[in-house]
């Protein structure tokens, strides 16, 4: 869009490339548009975040070579670097997937779905019940693990997607068009209700609060995979790899859905201008439900994958990942799907790096990680109020 409105005199090499015949033909190619380009984008974001943070970390190491006696910061960072990047990427993808739910809903309804973090939690809880049922039936080890995880993630996503739609129909739809404060408060209420209902359900069915997934029964998930980086060996949990692979696949689907399908275009149209979209014959209600379905499903996917990674969950786990994912969405530019991805990865990586380096500063420590993360958010918002990739919306006067 920018390319065609740019003044011809100001066109640079990049714009010329975007305008070239080669690129036009390339951009029409399905594989390029929906696989290579988005994957490239993700790789770029990961590499970018990793590079920036690594530089910052070594920069700090130069400033404070020995923050504590007998600790050479640069050495420690070198030792931890692969591990920090891997854990940052895996949690970053989880944040990104949750952030997508916030951002999609914000895009169409312009409101913060506070209850989204509870859909994430429900996805995790659904996965627990799915695996538990299989486990009690003794089927857990019979099914191929890959198939098992695919079914689990999809079922959890479907479940949370439906809950998302249900919540929208019951709690948000009657409020459409009301001032922003109203649905926000409702969402906070819904969040409480979902947490407590889950707690009651877990208490009544299995009489417990902490839900431990029977993943240890699955041999394929139990053993870590060792990776060799120079002299250091990093044990990567299988679940971390699953998170990254699954998240990439899901995000490719989402990208295809939003940019390549009629429904996706309809949703984008609504996010531009709901009234006009309605006049153009788009079924706005249906599309909003679809948005909640997809947003909710992504929350559920994230919750499901997360539960696989952490092993134990409870009805209250939604809050912090939800908050961080929301931060990620705002950081990337709320309403912007690519921004959510970038924001999620960036927050995940930042957190991982902060955890890995703050520990060497006795006056600070990891307990300040969240303070710093929020500090980054506030700093970004002050200098770029629309977020990293958000478009600046000048109000029409």
């Amino acid at each position, binding site marked *: 869009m920018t390319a065609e409105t740019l003044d011809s005199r100001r066109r640079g090499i990049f714009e010329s490339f975007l305008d070239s015949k080669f690129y036009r033909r390339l951009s029409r190619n399905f594989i390029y548009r929906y696989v290579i380009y988005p994957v490239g984008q993700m790789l770029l974001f990961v590499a970018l975040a990793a590079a920036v943070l690594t530089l910052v970390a070594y920069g700090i190491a130069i400033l404070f070579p020995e923050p504590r006696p007998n600790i050479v910061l640069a050495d*420690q960072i070198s*030792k*931890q670097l692969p*591990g*920090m990047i891997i*854990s*940052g990427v*895996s*949690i970053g993808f989880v944040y990104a997937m949750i952030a997508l739910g916030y951002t999609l809903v914000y895009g169409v309804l312009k409101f913060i779905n506070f209850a989204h973090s509870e859909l994430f939690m429900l996805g995790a809880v659904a996965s627990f019940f799915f695996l538990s049922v299989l486990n009690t039936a003794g089927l857990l080890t019979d099914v191929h693990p890959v198939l098992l995880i695919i079914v689990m993630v999809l079922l959890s996503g479907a479940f949370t997607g439906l809950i998302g739609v249900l919540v929208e129909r019951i709690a948000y739809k009657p409020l459409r068009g009301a001032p922003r404060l109203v649905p926000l408060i409702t969402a906070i209420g819904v969040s409480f209700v979902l947490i*407590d209902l889950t*707690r009651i359900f877990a208490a009544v069915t299995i*009489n*417990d*609060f*902490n839900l*431990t997934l029977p993943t*240890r029964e699955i041999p394929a998930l139990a053993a*870590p995979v*060792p990776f060799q980086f120079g002299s250091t*060996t*990093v*044990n990567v*949990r299988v679940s*971390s790899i699953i998170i990254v692979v699954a998240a990439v696949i899901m995000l490719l689907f989402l990208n295809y859905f939003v940019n390549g399908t009629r429904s996706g275009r309809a949703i984008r149209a609504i996010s531009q201008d709901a009234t006009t979209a309605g006049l153009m014959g788009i079924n706005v209600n249906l599309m909003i439900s679809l948005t909640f379905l997809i947003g909710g499903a992504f929350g559920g996917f994230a919750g499901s994958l*997360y539960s696989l*990674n*952490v*092993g*134990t*969950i*409870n009805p*209250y*786990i939604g809050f*912090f*990942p939800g908050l961080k994912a929301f931060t990620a969405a705002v950081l990337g530019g709320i309403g912007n799907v690519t921004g959510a991805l970038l924001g999620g990865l960036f927050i995940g990586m930042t*957190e*991982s790096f*902060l*955890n*890995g380096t703050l*520990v*060497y500063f*006795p006056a600070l*420590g*990891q*307990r300040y*990680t969240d303070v710093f993360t929020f500090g980054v958010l506030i700093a970004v918002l002050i200098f770029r109020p629309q977020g990293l990739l958000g478009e600046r919306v000048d109000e029409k006067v």
Partner: protein
Amino acid sequence: MKTARLVTLAGSAALALALSASLVGAQDSQVIKIASQSPLSGPQSVLGIAIRNGVELAIEQNSQALNDLGFTVEFVPYDDQATAEVGVANAQQIVADPAILGLTGHLNSGVAIPSSEVYNENNLVMVSPANTNPLITDRGYPTVNRICGRDDLQGPTGAVIAANDLGVTSVYILHDTTAYGQGLADYFRAEAATLGLTELGFEGTAEAANFDGIIQPILALNPDLVFFGGIYSQTGVFISQARAAGYTGLFMGGDGFDSSEFAELAGDAGVGTYYTTVAGPASVYPNAAQFIEDYNEAFGEDPQPFAAQAYDSTVIILNGIAAAATEAGGLPTREAVAAAVRATENYEGLTGTITFDDNGDPETAVYFAVEVVSADPAEWSNNTIVASAVLPSPLFALQQAEATPSS
């Protein structure tokens, strides 16, 4: 319209009448109430409900002495929601009920401290099953007691065992940023420093699920032992993840680890973990096995941490009331009950033998270091004791030192 309303009104009035009529008539005996306060809702409700259940079981099984004196004992559980406002508001309501003669609670020191101000102002005796914060009893209130250990004794015990019995030279200390966890970690840290252990890190984290980022520096520093001041629901998950990430050293914690659910959460990674506690495994206390059985029968689950302590606390209160009532020859005053509870001597409970000192701490408590032997929760009671130490409470130690001046 109007008739409909009238009918509803009449109907509900009739129902209310019938309801009250069908109730058992006035009791002949005098009612004594025991209250409990613990979080029954919210994320900490597992532990809070365990406390509540322990009290209920204790009252059910140990009211006979009071019944013989002509009293009925009733139980009133309060939910403090783990927040100070609610705890204090409940406390005010509790002390306003003259029938309530004793209270078992709380779970959180942050709630117990302000609430116990109210109890103490109104002479109501409180016995805490779970508050290990030194401040609870250090205020020297005549009404405030506890049967659990103190962080300032438990933490150092862990450090001593780590240095002397486990041959550890470097430690990495974590805590859950709560008053309990951080307090424990602080005391462990101080003792570890005096014992010459190298401290590789001291960190607090409220994270409950994903410890990836926290584990990275631990892997890089590779300490001999990771000490975690926290509750099993957090630490069990941490240990499972740390092992999976390749940490090979030892784990240690405090009585917050002491739950069969720890085994479930940590899995195989939890085997070989050490924790310190004042309540040894059931094998040490023969009564405990019976308690576990009764508890299971009554509530359909294994007792969670603090259930047994709550049971003991309540029995101590019941005994105190019975003693005071016998002396008074009728309904005792709250002051008398408080004094009787404070005078508790050599009470043989599920979790140890208790004699209170003048501050309300157990005069001596046995601090055990226990090793987890199995990933099977059912095997939790078979955990082995690797070391134990009998430690006097600070006040008792002081008194003893004064009584026997060193020559």
